[in-house]
């Protein structure tokens, strides 16, 4: 691990809260491209759903998780500096996260996906400001608009979680969001969708370790793995007449 472990008790309650699908941060309105993939006949059953999820976590999932880890590291460093030397420590955080945001935007070709990530990021920050007022100074320093993975990293740091926590959380979200949406879009057994998630668990853990290793890396050197069909599907979805999910 590259980040310094948080002193004090284990923060697993905070991690569970943040990864809970019931957190009112808007994630339930999205299928992460799955609705369009089903509409196009690309995903039909549990097997094709499992493949869909595996492709996602190994490309954009890893990228998002790496940016979450990098955002966690930058936020945690700024908080440490803030604790050491008054309010000045938090000041450079906005610029550091804006630099990350610019790099993540360059790795997200689809304007629709960028818009969604920005909206979800904003909703997460708004939710946290309201439900965890103690995070307010950190979130204020982070800036008003952050792509969702970066917002997750910042919120994770504000709650005392590690870069590995942030990366694991974002990767799990990348797989679980479409898996849960599948139940509403396909005639599929909910046990089958969660069987897919359990099957991916070792890969999710391995990818989270790899993403966490990028926490201290320069923003330019973060992974940039693309998923071109997801980009195309996201643009098709914006013009889709009968949609259940926003993405």
């Amino acid at each position, binding site marked *: 691990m590259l980040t310094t472990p948080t002193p004090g008790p284990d923060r697993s309650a905070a991690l569970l809260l943040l990864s809970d699908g019931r957190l009112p941060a808007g994630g339930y309105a999205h299928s992460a491209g799955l609705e369009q993939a089903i509409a196009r006949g690309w995903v039909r059953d549990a097997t094709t759903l499992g493949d869909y999820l595996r492709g996602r976590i190994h*490309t954009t999932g890893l990228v998002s998780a790496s940016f979450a880890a990098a955002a966690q590291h930058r936020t945690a460093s700024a908080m440490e500096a803030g604790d050491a030397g008054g309010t000045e420590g938090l000041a450079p955080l906005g610029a550091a996260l804006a630099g990350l945001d610019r790099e993540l935007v360059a790795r997200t070709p689809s304007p629709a996906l960028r818009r969604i990530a920005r909206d979800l990021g904003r909703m997460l920050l708004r939710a946290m400001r309201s439900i965890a007022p103690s995070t307010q100074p950190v979130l204020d320093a982070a800036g008003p608009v952050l792509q969702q993975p970066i917002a997750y990293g910042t919120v994770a740091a504000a709650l005392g979680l590690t870069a590995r926590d942030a990366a694991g959380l974002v990767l799990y979200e990348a797989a679980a969001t479409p898996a849960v949406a599948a139940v509403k879009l396909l005639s599929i057994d909910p046990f089958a969708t969660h069987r897919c998630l359990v099957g991916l668990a070792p890969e999710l853990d391995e990818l989270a370790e790899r993403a966490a290793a990028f926490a201290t890396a320069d923003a330019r050197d973060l992974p940039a793995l693309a998923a071109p069909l*997801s980009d*195309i599907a996201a643009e098709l979805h914006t013009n889709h007449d009968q949609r259940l999910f926003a993405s």
Partner: protein
Amino acid sequence: MTSVSSPPEVLSGLPDFARTDASGPRRRTHRGSFLCHAVIATELRAGRTRIARLRADTPLSPRPTIASGVEPYVRGGDAARIRMSTSAAGPVGGDTYLLDIHVREGSTLVIRDVGATLVLPGPHGERSRWITRLRVDEGATCVWIPEPVIAAAGCRHHHVIDADLAEGACLFYREELVLGRHREEPGSLSAHLSVRRGGAASVVQQLDLGPAAIGASATSVFGAHRALGNVIVADPDGAPGPAAAAPDTGSAVMRQDPSCVQITAVGEDLPALRTRLDTAMGLLGEPWAAPDPPGWSAIPR
């Protein structure tokens, strides 16, 4: 394991930009594979574009050519025209091809290929690399339309494009990547594309395709397709075309920022890909595409 690798690792052990003196890395690396380093530079002299440097390094051989076909995207008709040819099969596993292109202030370079690039596996199963470092200075234009890169069965190839543009530079780039020859199993291809303008990232992506890339055959990534193409247009006067469009189920026009647009398309084979890329490019309008029916194309066949 996937072929995932961060760009710094793929870019290790290379000589500095356009530096070809003997103090650089050894040309012949090991087990018969080698590093070859070609350099192209253009500059503006007395109001006209001239070729300032043209260094061939067998098998990478850039050749000056004359204008051919209609080129409305070349402002004022003034440009240096160069075609890349490779005078031997390759790259083959173990090889590193390095191409440095410098389009200096105010000049215009149109660069094409003589033929497709066929990437073959080497005798020892090593990876091959083709790295192009492109610098486009203030007021300069680079139009780069290479022929397809075909990853033959068994290859492990890294194809890296690292473009560094000045704020007022113009770039047109179109790439076509194909997995395997006709009826052949796909090779493994990792394609890195990075376009930075004034140091800020516009487009950064890595496409890992083929058997070595976990999840690449998923319908969230690349599916059962065999060909993938990208078009990048960076224009300081504003990106052409719509902010976003999906002309069909296998292509999308996506504006990255006010001065940069990307087209991505997939295809079951190269002809299908080209049809989609051409259709999507039609949305960009002149000077990149002719109004319908097309009287000319930036990509003459």
